[in-house]
């Protein structure tokens, strides 16, 4: 087994012993938002599609969870499944539209889809769609049945373990997918679409499948976030939230699975850390972005990993 993975798992297991409660929740937030950034990394880094719609599927994850718990009074497992299903169901038609166009047009179509959905949900019409499911504070603490036990999300340690386990499972699934023949085919399309098409690949179908899979990942992130923060907001659907995933993933390195997590950790940790010392965190973070883009354009994680590997090789 990869020593890095073992090390990470050991760190995650030990985290509740070392970290204070609020730090645990912060760590869980990094993992969940990192998963959201990964969903962008999958469509962009592996599929070559610069999407500004990922927040839609994050939001749909929250929406599915809310419908399941509010309207149908379902348990947490079913609500989780409902969140992911809502994101995937929404991605099937919207992804079909978006993946038919390319490059800048794809970007704009995803922006239009985001603005359109936000406008519809915010408008106050279509109450039967928006209902109380978009902006909501959970009036209860969710619990989860695992075997004979009923575990509560009131416990920070359990919340952290559960988020970490779900994120790990999702990353494993994504890893299996990108290293499968499907992932290879998609990489071929990203690198040279004309050649991939000549090889007989169904380009649009493959792009659509990847888009839908990534939407499912974003939906899972949204659902996990509701369990963690116990509130949802219409803001989650906004294209500026997609922008955060875009920035974090590219900052960390969008073409690796760990990069988006590294980028999101950097984003959240710096904004959190800086905010203790100065009021204008966002300005400082903006400057930091410009510096990173200037000196590590391939992404922080990828740049550091390469430096380490080079140093290691030189020693040998």
């Amino acid at each position, binding site marked *: 087994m990869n020593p890095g993975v073992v090390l990470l798992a050991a760190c995650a297991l030990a985290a509740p012993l070392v970290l204070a409660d609020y730090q645990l929740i912060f760590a869980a937030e990094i993992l969940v938002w990192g998963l959201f950034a990964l969903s962008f990394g999958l469509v962009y880094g592996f599929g070559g599609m610069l999407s500004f719609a990922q927040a839609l599927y994050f939001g749909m994850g929250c929406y599915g969870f809310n419908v399941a718990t509010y309207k149908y009074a379902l348990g947490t497992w079913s609500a989780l499944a409902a969140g992911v299903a809502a994101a995937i169901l929404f991605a099937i038609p919207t992804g079909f539209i978006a993946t038919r166009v390319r490059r800048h047009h794809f970007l*704009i*179509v995803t922006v239009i889809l985001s603005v359109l959905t936000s406008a519809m949900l915010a408008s106050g019409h279509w109450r039967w769609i928006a209902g109380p499911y978009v902006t909501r504070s959970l009036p209860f603490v969710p619990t989860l049945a695992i075997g004979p036990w009923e575990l509560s999300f009131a416990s920070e340690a359990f919340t952290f373990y559960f988020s970490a386990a779900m994120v790990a499972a999702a990353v494993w699934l994504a890893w299996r997918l990108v290293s499968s023949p499907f992932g290879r085919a998609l990489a071929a399309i990203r690198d040279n679409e004309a050649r991939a098409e000549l090889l007989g690949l169904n380009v649009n179908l493959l792009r659509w499948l990847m888009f839908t899979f990534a939407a499912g990942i974003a939906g899972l992130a949204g659902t996990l976030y509701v369990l963690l923060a116990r509130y949802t907001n219409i803001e989650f659907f906004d294209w500026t939230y997609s922008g955060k995933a*875009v*920035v974090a993933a590219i900052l960390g390195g969008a073409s690796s699975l760990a990069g988006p997590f590294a980028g999101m950790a950097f984003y959240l940790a710096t904004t959190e850390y800086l905010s203790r010392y100065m009021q204008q965190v966002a300005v400082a973070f903006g400057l930091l972005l410009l510096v990173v883009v*200037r000196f590590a354009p391939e992404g922080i994680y990828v740049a550091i990993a390469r430096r380490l590997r080079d140093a290691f090789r030189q020693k040998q």
Partner: protein
Amino acid sequence: MELLPVLVLNGLVWGLIVALIALGLSIIFGLLDFVNVAHGDFFMVGAVLAWVLIDRTGNFWIAFAIVPAIGLVAGGLIERGVLKAVENDASLSIVASFGLSLILQEGVRATYGATPKRILDPIGVTFPVFGLEYEFYRLFAAGVSVIAMGAFFLFLHRTKFGTWMRAVRQDREIAIAMGVPSERIFMWTFGLGTAMAMLGGVVAAPLTSVEFRLGLDVLPLCFIAVIVGGLGNLPGTAAAAILLSVMEGAITSFAEPTTARIISLVFMSVVLLVRPRGLFTGLAT
């Protein structure tokens, strides 16, 4: 329904302003291959600077004269100092301009404040149109946009610098080989694009409430206009922006504004699916 002409007129005025901003975005996009997410925020900064200058001097016309010049210089300096490194890489340009956008928004929030403010109509003359008193300033705003766009097209087609800009966009390598000073072109193109956004901001300031989030709504509209008009097709961009706003204005006469926005966005999506290379590509020229 009797409001229809006035709403269409409002849509036309707003569409002309958006067209001006979108043109600025389009030249940056087309020439530098730079996806400028901060473009809407330059528009916002233009409006905020207008408010500040009016607050200090009490005169709208000073703001009107100074702000675009500030935009030209600031844009040029930002391109030369900061953005040079990430040009020609669309994804990095998004990250860099997102950083820029954060700096502009939060910088304005820290200094100007978060509360929306209003500017009085600087002309203050109304005249009757279709049975309603219509502000003369709106016509003036539309006129400024039209003149600015006309001047820009003249500049692009009648001056040496404009010809260079078109040459660099058509084929960068050949243009450089022919001795076109591409570095200078990039710098002033970004400056010019920024100046257009900030002029749009000044002109639009008395028509809306001025706050640090003003750019967030305008940016998607501009991007949509750039793509629907056909990437690199400048008159197409302007036409798409005007079409979008006039359509929204017309629909607002019988439906609510959000419904109008939704209908026009759906229309734009359909256009993109049916004519992915832009509404006007292949019609003429």
